[in-house]
Structure formats: C-alpha cells, structure tokens
C-alpha cells in the first residue's frame, strides 16, 4: 500500500512538473525572454562573440545601466555610501560619456575620460581613405599621361601674331599664385603627413621623418591662412566672370575643343571648363577651409553634430536609405570627422587641380603665359577666348562660332 501511495505521489509530482514546464514554454512563446536574464542584465557571451565577429550590437542596455542616485540606499544601510551607483555603473557612465566629469583643465575634450571611436577613425584613415585617395590621384595622373600621349599638346592652330594683350593683371596673378602656391604646399605636406608612416618612414627612416613631419605640420597649419586669403581674393576678382551663360553650353557641346583640332567655341574671359574649375575650387576651398579651421582650433569649432542635425531634418539620410546621423558627438569624434572630411575634400580638390595644372602648363601651348607674364598672344586669345578678345580689343576674333578651346 505504501509503495502504491509513493508511486502515486511520484506520478502527481511528475505531472505537476510537466504542467509547469508547459506553462513556461507557453509564457516564452507569448513574450520573448530577456536574452540577458541569466546575467542579470549584463552582457552575455553571445554579445561578446557578436562583437568579436564584427557585428553591430545594440549597447543601449549597457549605456543606460549607469545606476540611479535617486534610488540609492540610505547612508546608514549596507552599500549606502555608493550613492546608488556601483563601480561598474560609474565606469559605464565614463565609457559612454554620460558621467558628470569636472576638470581643472580647460576645454571640453578634457572632460572625456574614455572614447573608443579613435580606432574606427584610424582604420578608415589608414584603410579606405589612403587607398582610394591614393588610387584617385594615381588614376588622374595616369589619365593625364594617356591624354597627353593620345592628343599631344594642344597647340595654337593659327599663326602667332607676336602681339600680346594683357590677360590677367598683376593683382589677379598675385591672388592666383597666392592660392596656387599655398595649395601645392598644403597638398604636399598633407599627403606626406597622411602617407608618412606607410611610405616615408620605410624610405627615409624615423629619425629623418620626425623633423620633416614637425616642419610639415608647421607649414600645413600656418600656410592655411595664405590659402584662405587667396581664395577670398580670387573669388572677389573672378566671381562675376564665372557666372554661367549661354556660350557655356556651346562650349561644353564640343568638349571645349579638347579632343579635336581647329575647334574653338566662343568664350568670354573664362570658358565653361574654367568655370567648372572655379566653382569647384570655391566650393571645395570653402569646405576644406572650414574643416581646416575646426582642426586648427581643436574642440573649439565642432561642426558635424550641427551638420548632421540639419541633414536629418532635411531627410537626407532617409533618401539614401540610411538611419539618422548621430547628433550627439564627443569632442574627439568631431575632430575625427573633421580630419576625415578635410582629407576626402583634399583628395577631390587635388584631383581637379592636377588636371588644371596639366592644361595650364604642358597641356596647352601659350596657357602658362596668362598666369606667368600676364600677356598672351593675340592669336591664342582669339582661339581660346574669342568673345573676351573682342571685348578687350574691339577687333573681331574671326569666326569664333566655329571655334573654341579647353580650360587651362
């Protein structure tokens, strides 16, 4: 009898367990269990493995687990002295930049104890930025070499007259060379600072690179002002001449005469190709100057949180199928983004200017005179800037409707 009772009780207990398990399964199906329940809300092995696999993990659960002073135990209670914030919670607050840090050093950057976006910045700088930027410049140089081999130097088609006219005044040339000279120095020092570790240190050694890098940094920082002044002057002198007009379409329709001889569409002081370069220089120049100023005065001119806010408001990320851009950035992240943007703009700028330098020197006969002595042969002026020639001299520039030439 006792055995039967024992077996009956065991059966009832087993049935009870089964029912409990079933209820638990149903409960799980009804509402997904907290994946971090087993760790009390802390990150799990799966979180760590996912991070190691390079997957994006939502760290909100960590970012927000920074304790709560309002729920602190009374001072007389056990752990009351912690003030409701345990050590791990305090470190998390420091880690995610939400701790109330007070420092005697000036500047917002001093209040940031931990920031981890530096590795992302470094990986992008040494990876895609250097790689694609380098390919872009090499590609442009290769394309120009190929163009030179195929097309050769763009010659003056007609007979040179030996008579010259003033193309650019001395102050215009001064402004151009102020901009150009500083740009070349900024480009060279910028490239050597970016590629120094990869290319120059293996070549000349660290001992030689160190003073060169210091000098390069000084040059880059201080010559920036001449560049900005040159940009302002060039804009003042040439903006009005670079407003698009109907002749530009004609010029573009025949490719400016770059690819064929004896084709000279009409152009005023600047042709469509030169206008493209002018507006490119202006837009890129302003952008690179603003990001450069942000870098010159570290942490004083944060740009990107504000820019991202505007872009989000305009719906740009949504149009591109992206999530909203972050509008809260640490001071260091602002600097990292400013540096990357500065370099990206610089690469595009250099690519355009390489083409400009080519056409202004070896690419086109007589083009350098315009910025060298300021005087150009009348025949050159007739062929490349027929309408401008007529305006300046009052003489006909011949059948300029059939003729043109490219941007120098």
């Amino acid at each position, binding site marked *: 009898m006792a055995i039967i009772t024992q077996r009956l009780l065991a059966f009832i207990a087993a049935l009870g367990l089964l029912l409990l398990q079933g209820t638990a399964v149903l409960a799980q199906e009804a509402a997904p269990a907290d994946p971090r329940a087993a760790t009390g809300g802390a990150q799990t092995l799966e979180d760590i493995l996912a991070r190691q696999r390079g997957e994006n993990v939502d760290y909100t659960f960590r970012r927000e687990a920074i304790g709560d002073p309002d729920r602190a135990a009374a001072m007389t209670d056990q752990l009351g002295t912690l003030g409701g914030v345990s050590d791990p919670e305090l470190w998390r607050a420091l880690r995610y930049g939400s701790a109330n840090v007070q420092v005697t*050093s*000036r500047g917002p950057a001093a209040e940031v104890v931990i920031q981890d976006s530096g590795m992302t910045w470094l990986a992008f700088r040494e990876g895609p930025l250097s790689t694609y930027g380098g390919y872009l410049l090499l590609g442009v140089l290769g394309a120009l070499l190929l163009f030179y081999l195929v097309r050769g130097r763009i010659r003056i088609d007609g007979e040179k007259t030996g008579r010259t006219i003033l193309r650019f005044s001395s102050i215009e040339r001064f402004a151009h*060379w102020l901009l150009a000279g500083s740009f070349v120095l900024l480009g060279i020092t910028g490239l050597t600072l970016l590629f120094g570790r990869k290319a120059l240190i293996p070549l000349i050694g660290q001992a030689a690179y160190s003073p060169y890098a210091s000098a390069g940094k000084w040059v880059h*920082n201080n010559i920036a002002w001449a560049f900005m002044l040159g940009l302002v002057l060039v804009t003042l002198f040439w903006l009005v001449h670079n407003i698009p007009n109907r002749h530009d379409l004609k010029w573009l329709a025949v490719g400016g005469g770059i690819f064929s001889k004896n084709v000279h569409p009409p152009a005023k002081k600047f042709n469509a190709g030169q206008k493209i370069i002018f507006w490119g220089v202006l837009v890129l120049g302003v952008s690179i100057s603003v990001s450069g100023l942000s870098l010159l005065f570290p942490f004083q001119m944060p740009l990107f949180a504000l820019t991202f806010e505007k872009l989000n408001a305009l719906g740009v990320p949504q149009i591109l199928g992206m999530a909203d851009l972050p509008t809260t950035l640490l001071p260091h992240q602002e600097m990292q983004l400013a540096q990357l943007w500065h370099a990206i703009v610089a690469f595009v700028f250099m690519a355009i200017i390489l083409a400009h330098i080519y056409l202004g020197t070896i690419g086109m006969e007589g083009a350098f005179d315009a910025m060298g*002595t300021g005087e150009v042969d009348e025949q050159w002026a007739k062929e490349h800037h027929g309408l401008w020639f007529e305006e300046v001299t009052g003489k006909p520039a011949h059948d300029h409707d059939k003729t043109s030439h490219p941007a120098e």
Partner: protein
Amino acid sequence: MTLPPPKGKTPMKSMYLAFLAIAVIAVAADFSLHRAGFSIQEVTSGPAVRLD
C-alpha cells in the same frame, strides 16, 4: 614655348611676390596666434596645470 616678358617688367614678378607673401603670412600667423594666446598650451591648460 612661352612668350618673352614685356620690356621693363620682371618676368613672373607677381608669382614671386605671392610666394614671398605666403612665407610672410605663415610666419606672421604663427607669431600672432601665439601672442594672442591661441597656442594649444594656453587654450587647453588651466592654472592647475604646469607644462613648462
């Protein structure tokens, strides 16, 4: 082939002057920004920090 400079004019004078101006502006910018208290040392340190 480039044209000879007009008589009585220094060839490429504007270019040389611009290059000189670049150097002058750079030195002046460095000097004046330091004098105006824009060195990174002055901007980011406080009275409790001794760097020298």
